[in-house]
């Protein structure tokens, strides 16, 4: 116990002792102020509970009449509530911030979707017009054929780049057909580029909540990129299934594996690109497990609740 905690404990115990003799606002205020100071000094609710427990033990007296005991319990409860009240305030703040973060994420995805659409459709139409103009130009001036052909090659390259960018931003197949078709589409691309064999197994049909589909798509995308970059694997399997209100997603490879000591700590995870996955999983209230051994490949096991905590609490409340 450090000094400030000892000091808090002493003050708390003494205030509680007074409170039990004479429940008045002065001792309530003391409980509140001690709780507030504990919060400011970085202590948590459990520290406060421990302080309360120690104080309660310290001031315990032999049980009197039933009425005295009841009054005592009531005084203990109100005193505890006072010292926890600052934590309630902080907790509400954190909850509000988390909701805001969620909303912001949704807004960002929405913007990305719009940009992807603009890049794909609008710019695509403009390019088509450019091609038409070139065709007309060539009719009028056949001698420019070589030059026009070169411009066309540039335009085709621009179009290819834009299409890729648009798909990376937001695959339309995800919005139109859902998670598994999108993962299949993604895997085909990865296989073509890297030679990696990707096997997809999933009994899941139908659609999930959009935030879940987007998150899982991005997670699989990141996981496959990791495999290509680091794992030296020849095969990878992706499994998606639903159990008891959770969606489970596994991405496993037959590569070199990651050293346990390196995969567990926070810092090396940055190098493995796992931080993004971890944050995404955490923001949806899910879990991430990494199973790996030297030369035994790596498997990421992700579990996300099908229903958001936000929605279910709203329903409950």
């Amino acid at each position: 116990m450090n000094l400030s905690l000892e000091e808090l404990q002493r003050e708390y115990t003494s205030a509680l002792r007074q409170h039990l003799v004479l429940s008045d606002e002065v001792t309530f205020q003391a409980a509140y102020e001690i709780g507030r100071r504990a919060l400011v000094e970085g202590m948590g609710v459990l520290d406060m509970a421990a302080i309360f427990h120690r104080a309660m033990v310290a001031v315990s007296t032999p049980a009197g009449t039933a009425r005295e005991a009841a009054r005592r319990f009531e005084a203990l409860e109100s005193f505890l509530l006072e010292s926890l009240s600052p934590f309630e305030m902080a907790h509400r703040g954190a909850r509000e911030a988390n909701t805001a973060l969620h909303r912001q994420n949704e807004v960002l995805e929405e913007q990305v979707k719009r940009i992807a659409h603009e890049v794909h459709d609008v710019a695509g139409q403009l390019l088509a017009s450019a091609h038409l103009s070139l065709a007309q130009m060539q009719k009028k001036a056949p001698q420019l054929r070589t030059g026009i052909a070169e411009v066309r090659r540039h335009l085709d390259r621009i179009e290819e780049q834009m299409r890729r960018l648009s798909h990376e931003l937001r695959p339309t197949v995800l919005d139109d057909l859902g998670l598994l078709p999108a993962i299949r589409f993604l895997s085909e691309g990865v296989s073509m580029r890297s030679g990696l064999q990707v096997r997809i197994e999933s009994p899941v049909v139908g659609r999930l909540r959009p935030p879940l589909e987007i998150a899982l798509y991005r997670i699989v995308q990141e996981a496959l990129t990791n495999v290509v970059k680091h794992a030296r694997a020849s095969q990878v399997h992706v499994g998606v299934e639903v159990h008891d209100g959770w969606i489970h997603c596994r991405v496993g490879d037959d590569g070199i594996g990651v050293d346990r000591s390196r995969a567990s700590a926070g810092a090396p995870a940055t190098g493995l690109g796992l931080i993004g996955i971890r944050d995404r999983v955490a923001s949806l209230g899910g879990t991430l497990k990494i199973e790996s051994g030297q030369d035994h490949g790596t498997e990421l096991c992700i579990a996300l609740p099908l229903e958001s905590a936000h929605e279910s609490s709203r329903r409950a409340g």
Partner: protein
Amino acid sequence: MGEGVRVEQESKVRVETEADIVLARQQGRAIARDLGFTLGNATLIATAISELARNIVQYATRGEVILKRIENGSQKGLVVIARDEGPGINDVRRAMEDGFSTSGRLGLGLPGVRRLMDEFNIHSEVGKGTTVTASMWKS
């Protein structure tokens, strides 16, 4: 507060010292318990009073806390009005953001009070003072 809110009774506490904060809390808690608020909500009301009164002592030196019973149809509630003639707040919007002050970063202070109460309103003029009105309805 919407129309049709009936004010029943009020109590006014001058706030300048720690002892005044205790008195304001005591009045607020008494009214809250009398209105039938749960122990938990009465505690939250006392907390809101603490934070508002603390701001008065800290930034305006002195001021007052007014506690009123309110009614809206069959609903009963309590409003806390914390008023001072201190320096006022230059940027009220920023003052209501978490992270504006040390206590704000932890969700305490004015943003904390806003989250504890059902309704919250702040009016401040530089050089004239600040009035915070916060109410809780009995559910």
